[in-house]
């Protein structure tokens, strides 16, 4: 049978080209794989959820609490179907798995990017894959945000409201963009079907296409080699082949990882739609986005209110905080490979301490996002008495500049210390050798 298939599909060529792909042996190279597995779990659980979900915001009678004949208890159909999913056997569990996997996918991809950045793996010839990776990160976040909206409970409703108005805050075209994106003035009659289309068709399609491109390019260009490969066989690919050595490792990793997610889901509830209730005008206290968007939220919390007119367009704090600043931040990340001047192709993952400036800037950048994320907790900081309403913004703004700067210099100091140690080690070794002779 193998022969039969091979005659038709040229499996042996596939085998040589793809299945024998060498994987470097180092745990940090698993992060990308975890991201990929998450995407697969997300698609599978997403399909199951979509089978029971009703993408509509028209009002239906709540079958769990119908009210009376002349005052029926009406809730949006999407919300109602979320209640039904929760009531179904394993339904709530399915939602939790979907939710936690999404969080872990973003977390794994962020750490994956950190690995790429700190080891210089974004350098020539892998710039394109860095950019595709950035797009993957952005679209993953967009997919997550559209996912929040679907249960259409009060939380989702308020989230949607903020997303709508952020879109509408774009100067000149904002109102049109927001209405086109969300099917009319907020909350349009067709907003849930529209967002549903994004969440289950458009965005996953984009994610899958980008993932495919990401991996094909990776296979073509090969992984960067870990440092030890240089010692074993200079300029040769060192690693274990996908078939059959890497596959069992991957399978084990997947199972372990799936186990962790299920464990999480079993004990940590997510987004209780019953608790938030259907959309209403009662605001939700301390509504917050997930951790990976908390920094944008933090910027919005500390940016002073302003607006001015620029050539007929309205530029306000919301646009600057929620669109302009994040665009600049992401732009800086996009630009990373362009700041690199090396002409040579990079074979070996670099030791971060050999590139102290890059290391320092990376750490400072992460600290900046951390400070902004903390700023997202401004109301909590104030009610806990750590800050006051008067000084909160000032303190957080000072931290915005100070903390990254300090961490940059701290990193430089540590790197210098490590180098000094390394040099004295080398001296000692040289002395020993001299004594031996």
């Amino acid at each position, binding site marked *: 049978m193998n022969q039969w298939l091979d005659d038709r599909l040229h499996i042996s060529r596939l085998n040589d080209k793809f299945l024998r792909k060498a994987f470097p042996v180092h745990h940090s190279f698993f992060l990308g794989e975890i991201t990929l597995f998450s995407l697969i779990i997300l698609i599978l659980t997403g399909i199951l959820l979509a089978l029971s979900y009703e993408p509509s915001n028209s009002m239906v009678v709540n079958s769990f609490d119908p009210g009376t004949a002349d005052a029926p208890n009406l809730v949006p159909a999407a919300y109602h179907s979320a209640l039904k999913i929760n009531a179904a056997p394993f339904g709530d569990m399915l939602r939790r798995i979907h939710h936690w996997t999404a969080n872990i996918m973003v977390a794994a991809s962020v750490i994956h990017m950190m690995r790429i950045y700190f080891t210089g793996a974004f350098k020539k010839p892998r710039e394109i894959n860095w950019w595709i990776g950035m797009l993957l990160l952005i679209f993953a976040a967009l997919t997550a945000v559209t996912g929040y909206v679907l249960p259409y409970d009060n939380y989702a409703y*308020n989230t949607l409201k903020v997303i709508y*108005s952020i879109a*509408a805050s774009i100067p000149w075209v904002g109102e049109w963009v927001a209405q086109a994106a969300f099917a009319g003035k907020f909350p349009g*009659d067709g907003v849930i079907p529209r967002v549903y289309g994004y969440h289950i068709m458009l965005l996953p399609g984009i994610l899958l296409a980008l993932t495919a491109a990401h991996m094909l390019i990776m296979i073509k260009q090969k992984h960067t080699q870990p440092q030890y490969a240089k010692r074993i066989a200079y300029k040769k690919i060192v690693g274990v082949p996908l078939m059959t050595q890497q596959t069992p490792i991957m399978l084990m990793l997947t199972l372990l990882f799936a186990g962790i997610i299920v464990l999480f889901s079993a004990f940590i509830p997510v987004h209780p739609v019953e608790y938030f209730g259907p959309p209403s*005008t009662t*605001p939700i206290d301390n509504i917050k986005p997930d951790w990976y968007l908390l920094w944008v939220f933090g910027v*919005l919390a500390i940016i002073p209110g302003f607006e001015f007119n620029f050539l007929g367009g309205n530029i306000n704090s*919301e646009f600057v905080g929620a669109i302009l600043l994040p665009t600049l931040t992401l732009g800086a990340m996009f630009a990373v490979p362009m700041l690199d001047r090396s002409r040579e192709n990079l074979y070996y993952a670099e030791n971060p301490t050999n590139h102290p400036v890059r290391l320092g800037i990376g750490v400072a950048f992460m600290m900046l996002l951390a400070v902004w994320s903390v700023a997202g907790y401004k*109301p909590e900081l104030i009610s806990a008495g750590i800050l006051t*309403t008067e000084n909160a913004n000032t303190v957080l703004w000072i931290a915005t500049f100070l903390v990254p700067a300090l961490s940059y210099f701290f990193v430089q100091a540590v790197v210098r210390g490590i180098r000094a140690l390394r040099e004295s080690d080398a001296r000692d070794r040289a002395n020993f050798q001299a004594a031996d002779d």
Partner: protein
Amino acid sequence: MTRYKRQDPEITRRKFINVAMGTTAAVGGVSLLSTLGAANPVFRLTADKMPPLEGDILVHAEESKEGRPITVADLSTQLVRAWAMGKDEDGNDVIRKGDPNNILALYRFPQGQLVAPTNLEATVDGQIVAYSDICTHAGCSVSDSDINAGQMRCPCHSGEYDPKRGAIVTGGPPPKPLAQLPIRQDGDRLVVAGFFLTPPYPYHNSEAEWNNVKQEVEEALT
């Protein structure tokens, strides 16, 4: 050496195909773009989506009491959420909550506590004041502050307003105070006395847009 470049009097096949394909792609692209227009549905201004209008009665917005007229005794220094209730084309009562941005915040302060820039003319006896309850920042519903007593706080990005001073911004990102709604007392009911004094959310960015809305409403009513 002479360079000889062949001058072809006729259009080459390759060129022809390229031009043909380019034209097709352009026409196809433009026609696809036209479908984008359908992405943005038309908006119909129905009675339930109109902003609070002169003569509307203020009713409770809280679920358990929704639709019940608000009396002076219901009000205090704690925020009370309200809808405006008017009539539709057939003369039936209609709560104007088709546009959730119509939600209102009502307060009653002891005499003398409400001060400028609140428009005292538009309050009841300088005691009862009505604001749009929609944060001018990104449109969340604003609540009483749990941190600073007597202030309002928006839960979305910690915008703060002072309800005694015309709901001016006292903290956070909102660009403008909440819009004040003129009200008067009629028996034991509270009645809307006109349009919002300043453009409410989501029109807070442009006076012109708000004026258009007012005009549209007036046209629809006559």
